[in-house]
C-alpha cells in the first residue's frame, strides 16, 4: 500500500483502498469482451462499404417483393389461430410447470437444500437449451405435430418463468406466511393462501411477457415443422415465393406488435392502482349492487343480504363483475386454444416406448469429420453475439438517453424516443434477419444486424429506465455548483447508473449469443445452419455434438456474465 500520498500543502491523504482481485479480474474480463467485440465487427466485415455493395441486391429483391401476395382471409385466420393456440397452450403449460419448480427454487418456500438444488438445476438447464433444440429432439421422438412443439416451447420457457417466479417469491413479504404458520397452517397451506396471492400480479405479468416471446419463437420453429404462420413463412421463403413470404412476415410483424400492446395494457391494469371512484356505467352497476345489501351500517354488525342471511361474498359490483369476466374469459380462451391446437396423443405411448431407441441415435455425440467446420461455425456464432451487442449498445446509448425523461431535452423528445423503442421491441428478430438476408445475402452479417437492432429495443429501454431511476438529488447538488447540463449528465447521472448499464449489456450479450445460435437456421450464419442441416439429413450424433457445444458455450457465457455483474454491482 506504501506511504500515504500527500498534496502540495502536505495534508496526508488516506491511502487509497487497493481494488480486490475479483474487481480487477472483472474489469479485465470486460476489456477482453470489448476487444473481442470490436474484433468481431471487423472480422465479420460489417461496414458501410459492404452494405453499399449489396444495395443492388436489395433493389433487385424489392422489385420481386411486390405486389405482396396475401393468403386468402380464411386460410390466414386458420394459420393465425393455429399459431396463437400453440403459443397459448405452451405458455400455460410453462406456467403450470414453472410454479412448483419456482416454489422449490425459492429460498423461503423450498423444502430443503437438495430439492432447491434440483429445482435450480432444472431452471438453468431449461434456459440453456434453446427451444429450437428442444423442438428438434422432441420432433424426433414424437414426430411432427403441435404437441412436441408446445412441449419444446413450454420446457424452454421454464428457464425464464421459473427464475422470475422464484425471484418474485423471494422478494415477497414473509409476514403473512408466518402468521398462517403461527396459526397452525401447513407448508402447503401457507404457500397457497399467502405466497401465491401475494405474487399473483407478477405471475401473470411474467406469463404475458413470456407469451410475447413464445409467439416470436413459434414462428422460428416453423422452420423445423411447427404448424401455423411460421411454417407457411418458412415454406414460402424456401420455395422463393418472396411475395407470399414478405406478406406473411408483415402479418407476423403486426400480430407481434398487437400482442405486445395488448399484453402491455393487461399488465398495466394488473399492476396499477384500482380506482374506487367510478362513474358512468360502472357507477350505475355499483349503485345497484349496493342496494342489495341492507346492513353495511357501521362495522360492528355483520353485513347481511336482503334476505337477512349473513353476507359471506362480495356484492356483484363492477369490480367483481370485471374480475369474474376476466377469469371466465381466460379459462374460455385457454380451453378453446387447447382444443384448437389439435394435439395428437394417439401415438404417445408407442413414442415413449421407442424413447430409448431414439435417444440412442443421439449417442455418442460425434462431430464425424466436421470438427474444424463446427468449431469455426461456433466461433462465428460467438462473434455474431459480440458484434451485435456492441453495435446495439452504440445505437442504444443515445436512444436510451433521449428516452429518459430526466435527461432528455424535453418530455416530448423522451416520449418520441420511448415510442421508437416500443416499435423496435415489437420487431421480431427473425423477420429482421430475413429482410437483412435478402438485402445483404446469406451469412453472418444479416444475423448480426438483426440481433443488433433487436438489442437496441431491449438495451435502449433498460438504459432509459436506469437513468430515470437515478437519484435526482445528486444531480441537483451538482447543478447547484454551476455545472452545465452535460457536466451534470456525466458527473451525476451516468456515474450513478454505470454499474447497472454494464449489467444490462452483459445480460444482452448472454441473450444475443443464445439467439445467434438460432438465427443460423434461416441462413444468418453460425452454428444454427449446421444444426438444422444435420437434423434434416438425420445425422443425430452430429446434432447431439452441436447441442453439447451450444449448451457449453451458453453456460460459459452466462457464468462469465453473472459473475462479472455480481462483482461490479
Amino acid at each position: 500500500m506504501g506511504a500515504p500520498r500527500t498534496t502540495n500543502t502536505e495534508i496526508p491523504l488516506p491511502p487509497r483502498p487497493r481494488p480486490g482481485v475479483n474487481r480487477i479480474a472483472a474489469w479485465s474480463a470486460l476489456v477482453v469482451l470489448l476487444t473481442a467485440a470490436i474484433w468481431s465487427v471487423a472480422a465479420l466485415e460489417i461496414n458501410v462499404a459492404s452494405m453499399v455493395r449489396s444495395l443492388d441486391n436489395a433493389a433487385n429483391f424489392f422489385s420481386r417483393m411486390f405486389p405482396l401476395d396475401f393468403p386468402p382471409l380464411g386460410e390466414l385466420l386458420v394459420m393465425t389461430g393455429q399459431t396463437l393456440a400453440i403459443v397459448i397452450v405452451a405458455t400455460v403449460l410453462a406456467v403450470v410447470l414453472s410454479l412448483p419448480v419456482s416454489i422449490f427454487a425459492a429460498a423461503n418456500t423450498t423444502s430443503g437444500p437438495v430439492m432447491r438444488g434440483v429445482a435450480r438445476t432444472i431452471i438453468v438447464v431449461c434456459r440453456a437449451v434453446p427451444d429450437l433444440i428442444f423442438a428438434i429432439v422432441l420432433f424426433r421422438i414424437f414426430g411432427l405435430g403441435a404437441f412436441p412443439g408446445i412441449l419444446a416451447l413450454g420446457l424452454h420457457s421454464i428457464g425464464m418463468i421459473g427464475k422470475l417466479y422464484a425471484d418474485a417469491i423471494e422478494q415477497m413479504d414473509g409476514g403473512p406466511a408466518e402468521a398462517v404458520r403461527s396459526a397452525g397452517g401447513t407448508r402447503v397451506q401457507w404457500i397457497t393462501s399467502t405466497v401465491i396471492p401475494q405474487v399473483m400480479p407478477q405471475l401473470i405479468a411474467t406469463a404475458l411477457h413470456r407469451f410475447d416471446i413464445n409467439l416470436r419463437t413459434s414462428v422460428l420453429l416453423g422452420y423445423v415443422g411447427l404448424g401455423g404462420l411460421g411454417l407457411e413463412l418458412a415454406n414460402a421463403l424456401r420455395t422463393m415465393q418472396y411475395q407470399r413470404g414478405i406478406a406473411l412476415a408483415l402479418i407476423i410483424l403486426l400480430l407481434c406488435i398487437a400482442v405486445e400492446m395488448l399484453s402491455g395494457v393487461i399488465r398495466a391494469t394488473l399492476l396499477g392502482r384500482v380506482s374506487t371512484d367510478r362513474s358512468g356505467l360502472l357507477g350505475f352497476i355499483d349503485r345497484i349492487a349496493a342496494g342489495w345489501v341492507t346492513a353495511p351500517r357501521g362495522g360492528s354488525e355483520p353485513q347481511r343480504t336482503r334476505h337477512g342471511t349473513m353476507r359471506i361474498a362480495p356484492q356483484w359490483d363492477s369490480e367483481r363483475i370485471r374480475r369474474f369476466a376476466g377469469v371466465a374469459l381466460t379459462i374460455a380462451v385457454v380451453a378453446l386454444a387447447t382444443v384448437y391446437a389439435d394435439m395428437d396423443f394417439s401415438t404417445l405411448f408407442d413414442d415413449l416406448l421407442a424413447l430409448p431407441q431414439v435417444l440412442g441415435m443421439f449417442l455418442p455425440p460425434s462431430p464425424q469429420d466436421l470438427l474444424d467446420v463446427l468449431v469455426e461455425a461456433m466461433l462465428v456464432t460467438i462473434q455474431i453475439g459480440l458484434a451485435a451487442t456492441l453495435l446495439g449498445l452504440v445505437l442504444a446509448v443515445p436512444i436510451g438517453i433521449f428516452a429518459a425523461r430526466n435527461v432528455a431535452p424535453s418530455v416530448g423528445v423522451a416520449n418520441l424516443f420511448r415510442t421508437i423503442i416500443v416499435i423496435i421491441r415489437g420487431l421480431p428478430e427473425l423477420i429482421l434477419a430475413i429482410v437483412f438476408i435478402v438485402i445483404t445475402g446469406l451469412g453472418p452479417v444479416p444475423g448480426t444486424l438483426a440481433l443488433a437492432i433487436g438489442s437496441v429495443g431491449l438495451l435502449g429501454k433498460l438504459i432509459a429506465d436506469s437513468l430515470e431511476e437515478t437519484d435526482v438529488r445528486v444531480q441537483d447538488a451538482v447543478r447547484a455548483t454551476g455545472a452545465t447540463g452535460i457536466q451534470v449528465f456525466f458527473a451525476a447521472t451516468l456515474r450513478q447508473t454505470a454499474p447497472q448499464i454494464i449489467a444490462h449489456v452483459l445480460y444482452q450479450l448472454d441473450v444475443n449469443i443464445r439467439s445467434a445460435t438460432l438465427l443460423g437456421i434461416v441462413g444468418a450464419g453460425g452454428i444454427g445452419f449446421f444444426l438444422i442441416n444435420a437434423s434434416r439429413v438425420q445425422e443425430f450424433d452430429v446434432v447431439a455434438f452441436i447441442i453439447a457445444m451450444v449448451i457449453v458455450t451458453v453456460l460459459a457465457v452466462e457464468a462469465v456474465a453473472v459473475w462479472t455483474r455480481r462483482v461490479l454491482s
Partner: protein
Amino acid sequence: MTAAAAHKTIPELGTIRFENVTKKFGSITALDNVSVEFAANKINVLLGLSGSGKSTMLRHINGLNKPSTGDVWTLGTPVRSASPTTLRALRNNVGMIFQQFHLVESMSVLENVCTGKLGSLRGPRFGLWSYPRYVRENAMEQLARVGLADKAFQRAGTLSGGQQQRAAIARALIQRPTVLLADEPVASLDPLSSAGVIELLAQISREENLTVICSLHQVQIALEFADRIVGLNAGRVVLDRPAAGLTHNDVDGIYAPVPVDERVKIAV
C-alpha cells in the same frame, strides 16, 4: 430424569412455562437461561429494549423458534420435542398478532381472517370460495366484533394501520385460541390508534379469559394494561412482578445498563 419426575413437571393446562431456556442464533445469545411461568387467564406484558429477547420469547411459545437448551411448556405440551402434528394442534390454540400486521394486502379483509382457521382445516386453500361456509360466517362475525364488518370485502391494503391490526386480531380470534401472543402490536401505530387497539385487546382478553403475552415498548401502556410485567434485559429476566403498584421508577431498572439519553427516549 425418571418418568415420574417428568410427569410431575407438567404444568397445569392454560399456563406457559419456560424452563432454563437458552436460545442462541449463531454466536448471539437471545435468551440466557430463562425460567419463568405465565399464569392462565392473565395479561402478561414483556418489557425491554429492542434486542432484549422479547420477540424470541414469544416465538418460543408457539414453536416458531425452538430452544437451544431447556424447554418451553405451552398448554401442557413440551414445544422443543413436539412433532409437526402436535405443534400444529398447539398453534391452533395459540393466536398471534404482529407489529407489521402481516396481512396479505391484495386479499380481501374477510379472506385474510379466514386464513386464521387454516390450522384446523385440511388441504390447501386459495380464494374466499375455498373456505367452508361456516368459516366465512365466523370470519364475518369476528370482523363485526373488532368493528370492521363494513370493510369485509375491501382489500386489506386499503385499511389504515389501526384497522389492519384489528383485522389481524380478528384473524387470531377465529382460531378460538386460549392463548394470545402479541408481538409489539402497537409499535407501528399512531397514539390514537394504539389506544384503540390496546383497549380492544384488553376487552377481548377479559371476555374470552385469554392468557395474553404481549411485548410492548411503552411503559405507560404496559402499566395500565397488564396484570403482570416481566422485564427482559440482554436475554435475562430482570423483573417479574404484578403490575399493580408498580411505578415508572421500578420499571426503569429494566433499561439499566443503557446510556442515559437512550433511557430517556424510551421512557418518553
